[in-house]
């Protein structure tokens, strides 16, 4: 928590993943194809989950989304990615799509 006064603006958008991952790689995120760059309707094998939050990693696991399992992106709508894991559809946001690294 910052202790100094800082006006950050009301509509400050959190830009955690502000970089073009994979292209220039100066963001420290490391190369790797996340679901953000995945092609539609192509089955990928998950390589790793790079969430900075254990909870979401564990939750994804309970859905069957973990290294070694398969995932397909069927739609990209606005900032949402519709993915299929084990025949079930989920809508995830771009931040989460970035977390799922595939081959």
């Amino acid at each position, binding site marked *: *928590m910052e202790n100094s006064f800082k006006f950050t603006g009301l509509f400050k958008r959190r830009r955690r993943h502000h970089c073009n991952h994979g292209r220039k790689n100066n963001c420290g995120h490391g190369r790797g194809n996340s679901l953000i760059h995945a092609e539609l309707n192509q089955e990928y094998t998950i390589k790793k989950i790079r969430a900075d*939050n254990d*909870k979401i990693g564990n939750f994804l696991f309970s859905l069957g989304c973990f290294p*070694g399992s398969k995932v397909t992106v*069927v*739609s990209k709508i606005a900032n949402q990615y519709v993915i299929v894991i084990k025949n079930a*559809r989920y809508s*995830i946001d771009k931040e989460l799509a970035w977390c799922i690294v595939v081959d």
Partner: protein
Amino acid sequence: MKIALAGNPNSGKTTLFNAITGKIEKVGNWAGVTIAKKEASLKKSLNRYSQEITVVDLPGAYSMSPYTSEESITREFVANANPDVIVNIVDATNLGRSLFFTTQLIELGIPVVIALNKSDLAKKRKLRIDQELLAGELNCPVVAISAQNGLGLEGLVDRVIQAVGAKQLSAFSQGEISGIGEAKIRDLDEKRYRYVDEIVAKVELRDIKGDTTNIQDRLDRILANKWLGIPIFALIIWLVFSISQTYVGTYLADILVGWIDRFYSVVAGLMGANVSPILATLLLDGIIGGLGAVVGFLPLIMVLFFLLALLEDSGYMARVAMIMDRFFKWVGLSGKSIIPMIVGTGCAIPGIMATRTIQDDRQRRTTAMLTPFMPCGAKLPVIALFAGVFFEDASWVSASMYFLGITIIILSALIIRKITGDEKVNDYFIMELPEYRIPSVKRAAQSMLNQAKAFIVKASTIILLCNAAIQVMSTFTWQLEVVSQGNEASSILASVAAPFALILIPLGFGVWQLAAAAITGFIAKENVVGTLAVVFSITNFINVDELALVGGAGNIAGVMGLTSASALAYLAFNLFTPPCFAAIGAMNAELGSKKWLFGAIAFQLAMGYVVAFVIYQAGTLLQTGSTGQGFLWGLVAVGAIVATIAYLMFKRPNEPIRSKFQQG
């Protein structure tokens, strides 16, 4: 004997629960409708055994692994309640994920019966499951059912009874897991998934693979479209309100009010002239009139609930969460925050309770305190009444109150985020997308009747009492003399409400009658209409002669002395001030902190006052070219509120309120 229903979210546990117990618990076509366990006894027609059988419906879970906190509720329950049999509801169209949880349940040692739900849907999708092989693999009976259509329920109950006392063997055993590290558990769980995959490969025959873009996805692309999503949502909500208010609801309300009118005359006739006039007024105007005014709006509420239930059943609501995620993220809420708000359109209490699925403390509390800003069913009568009286039955009034609610929620969330300290939260959005389906009319009708029942119970108890009290208080002075004609301001009610009315002058409705109605609204929001009926001596608002919702609109508007600007301000005031006491109680339970609770109530009061002030003064300025009554005083008050909020927003953050949330 006790049986527990367990399974993945949206696998149909509550639908099955309703089907076998005859209850009408809330169901919806999205994950996480059930948030607390429910108990009921098995329906007589299904229970051919001499013993009492209790069925327990549990919230859905994907896993029982010890590291997932939200799933520990299920684990704890199963451990504590010690059911004789667990019925594991498995979505037949999604074996691959569901069986993971099944294998964990089986390890508990309690007999498990698998109910293969949505088996009709699976058949339709050319999906075949070898039940016998599955039963053999897992060592437990498998029964194909369709909870929605009531198929296979007898067979399920029979298998459950047979299973009592049986020893549950587990084919897959991970052994003792307490005391071993998380990484190790993860390894074991991966093994478990591979085991499940093997079973699925053996027992399932899929002709159509479900992982390419299909017609549903194309529909999603339109309904959740970046630009079209919001306008479509707005159109649907407008349709819902206009059908319930302008067309069907009005027609039904006219019939109902006709009956109430006749009842009124019958009672009046029976009493004749011998009954004391005070008693006669209390009974006729206070009880029948006040109640009639409220109950007259019942058909509107019923039609609204019917339509909302259809919408919930269709699977569309999960798409609304998808659309809203973007906007809610801007203001520091979670996309999941929309679910409590949608639920809150029916009633704020289950809406507030639905915030439990939001993990982050600050987001959860913010959502809990803002959910009451949605126009709940109880606020509908006053909205419909004012729409009829002041806006010629325009259905845009209700729909715009709905969207004004969402707008104010987003604005408020922004303010609250600033006040509580803008800490970074890693809130990822993930939501299961249920398949679209033709909504069940039967279930929508059940939901509607359930609401109607609750409404009638409330009307005949608390609202009846309030109306009677209001009638007495407005009939007598403090000296217990009857208030004389033209001297209404000397009544007990007037003197109690008058100080509050003073505060409300800058909002355009500073008369004691309207103040009294706003106050009784805290007991139950339906009271607002009832109190208005009593204090303005209007027996019922709905006129049966004209096919319009509110008859003699001009007269009523004249009696109340409101302009359209002040009427709109009054609606906003009712919407954005604290909800009824019951909802405040729910807020207290979910916020879990007095500091948050009082903060929330103060914030709601401030918000209601400011919004009403702005609407009234700006509206009056537009209409007449000059500001309304009490502008200066109101400006001072609003200025003070805004300054306080601004101070809280931009002060140095010394002690963050939000502190407990830690990851992992």
